[in-house]
């Protein structure tokens, strides 16, 4: 054997061990990877923005003494009964079916205690959620599972779902493992079969039809309910403009960090845009139409903290929505279940096989034994605590920027740490006045 030094093993940057493992998995099973959650790749995000804070040119507000309001009105354009929330952090649509009944109840409890809204999902409205949600947004989806005029009328707002950030252009899939008797009955389908949710609505196509559809829903509900239109982050400028043209009261914009109950990994990771890139384009569409603040903008996809809330609002959003973060607050992916995650071949904070219905935390499941582990009262309290903390954090930042309402935050309060984030968010790179793609950057 030669004594010459050997070339050390070198891994390919293209064919990494993780990539190779996926190739082997695909070859062995013949099935693409399906999972829950949102994109896991690193993207330009709110972490790439910083607030400037006040100094001499702007003065701050006293943190514990001076008021910084957080309330938000939604649906003021046409609805007779617009929604007024205490905080601008709402709970995104997540279905009964994807989540257990107790988990939906906990979302309602937590949101109501914190003074905000929750949202149904694909599969209809449950009594748990309606009963425990002071303000409930009822999603109107392509599948129309469980859709009926009685629930439309007892909702506080209607959200027409055109797309979602995890899979713009895609429909849904709830695999048979989670189709219990109750889920099957609500969706008019046999128990135990895979349930597909269409990617397009069955009775309208395009913005002109959408305008008529919105008018029909307003007629059915006697023009009382705010009507939201939810879009995935794909072409936010045009989609926002078309939603406004069609008569939406509120536009909900979901970036690719937004989660899903289940879809193909290739879809989650390769379709859509980061929320940071989406917000300024949607705001510009609203401003170009003279509708900014008249049609409210709710943004979602990777909102985790009060800092993220404040940054989204500084870019022009009226409110945000959280889904994944809310599930984590309830107890999803908690390390206390680590031994059970290990048995499933994963680990806490990485578990994403929500579609299989074997969630050790009892949240993304229809298994009676597993869902019994989850306490909806405790879960609701945890969610309330988390929402309160987010609000306090956002207020802390807003006061430091001299703002007496979260809605007074503005892009001028922000700078960016990277060229990518600066270009997407439309704010200058820290220490310069350079916004890539917009100006030359001279001081």
């Amino acid at each position: 054997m030669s004594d010459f030094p050997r070339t050390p093993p070198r891994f390919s940057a293209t064919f990494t061990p993780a990539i190779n493992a996926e190739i082997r998995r695909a070859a062995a099973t013949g099935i693409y990877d399906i999972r829950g959650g949102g994109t896991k790749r690193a993207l330009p995000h709110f972490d790439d923005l910083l607030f400037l804070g006040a100094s001499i040119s702007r003065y701050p507000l006293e943190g514990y003494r001076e008021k910084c309001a957080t309330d938000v009105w939604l649906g003021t354009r046409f609805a007779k009964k617009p929604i007024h929330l205490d905080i601008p952090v709402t709970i995104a649509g997540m279905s009964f079916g994807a989540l257990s009944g107790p988990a939906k109840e906990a979302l309602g409890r937590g949101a109501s205690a914190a003074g905000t809204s929750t949202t149904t999902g694909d599969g209809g409205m449950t009594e748990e959620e309606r009963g425990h949600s002071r303000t409930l947004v009822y999603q109107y989806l392509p599948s129309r599972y469980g859709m009926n005029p009685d629930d439309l009328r007892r909702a506080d707002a209607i959200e027409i779902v055109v797309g979602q950030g995890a899979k713009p252009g895609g429909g849904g899939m709830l695999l048979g493992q989670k189709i219990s008797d109750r889920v099957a009955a609500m969706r008019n389908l046999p128990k135990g079969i895979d349930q597909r949710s269409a990617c397009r609505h069955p009775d309208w196509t395009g913005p002109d039809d959408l305008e008529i559809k919105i008018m029909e829903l307003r007629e059915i509900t006697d023009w009382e309910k705010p009507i939201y239109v939810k879009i995935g982050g794909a072409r936010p400028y045009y989609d926002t403009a078309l939603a406004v043209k069609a008569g939406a009261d509120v536009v909900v914009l979901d970036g690719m960090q937004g989660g899903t109950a289940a879809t193909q990994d290739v879809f989650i990771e390769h379709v859509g845009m980061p929320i940071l890139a989406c917000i300024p384009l949607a705001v510009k569409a609203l401003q170009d139409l003279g509708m900014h603040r008249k049609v409210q903008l709710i943004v979602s996809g990777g909102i985790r903290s009060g800092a993220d809330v404040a940054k989204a609002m500084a870019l022009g959003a009226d409110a945000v929505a959280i889904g994944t973060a809310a599930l984590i607050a309830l107890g999803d992916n908690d390390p206390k279940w680590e031994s059970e995650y290990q048995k499933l071949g994963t680990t806490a904070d990485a578990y994403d096989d929500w579609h299989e219905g074997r969630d050790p935390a009892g949240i993304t499941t229809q298994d009676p034994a597993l869902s019994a582990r989850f306490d909806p009262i405790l879960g609701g309290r945890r969610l309330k605590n988390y929402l309160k903390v987010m609000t306090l954090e956002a207020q802390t930042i807003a006061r430091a920027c001299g703002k007496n309402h979260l809605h007074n935050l503005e892009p001028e309060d922000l700078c960016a740490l990277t060229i990518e984030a600066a270009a997407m968010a439309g704010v200058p790179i820290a220490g310069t006045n350079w916004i890539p793609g917009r100006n030359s950057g001279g001081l």
Partner: protein
Amino acid sequence: MQTFDLGAQGLRALNSALHALKGQTNMTEWEVINPKGSHAIAAGVDAALDITVRGSTGYYCAGMNKLATIRIKGSAGPGVAENMMSGSVIIDGDASQYAGATGRGGLLVIKGNASSRCGISMKGIEIVVHGNIGHMSAFMAQSGTMVVLGDAGDALGDSLYEARLFVRGSVKSLGADCIEKEMRPEHLALLADLLKRGEADTKAKPSEFRRYGSARTLYSFNIDNASSY
């Protein structure tokens, strides 16, 4: 009978008046004149009314109807009786796209032809079409019954679940997972009843129909069936 001039009084006033009748049993006869293709006529009615629309309607006439009998003395635009819960909608003329889409109950009768995607994603509604239906009808139909006295276009019943389809004429093509099935006595009885309630029993006999339904091979995803999707 209440006569409502839609051209003079407007859609909001009509639907508001109809919605206000929930739970009442008197003043059940209504006539709507001058519809002129307006959208969402009598949408969201929740009372056992008998409403006659004298003329053709636009989109979503009788949308989400509960309990009411709505007669259209003309043709209907897209999405007539969409998501109907109960009651009846009877159209003298033709129906545009998505007739009876996602309907969960009630009876939809189209005495003329229906365009594409008739009964798309139907969830329990009964549909009787005296004429022909267009392509992709009963797409992803979950439950309920569709009876067609004429011909069906391309891709009938694509990705069908448990809905029952009966066609008297030709079927241009069947969609994925839709197959012809044996006609058993209970199906003939079902047809006889629906033809009668659909005002078509003088036009056709149950024995003249063929039955189509789901092969149920696509109910659970299997990579070996990928080419079928």
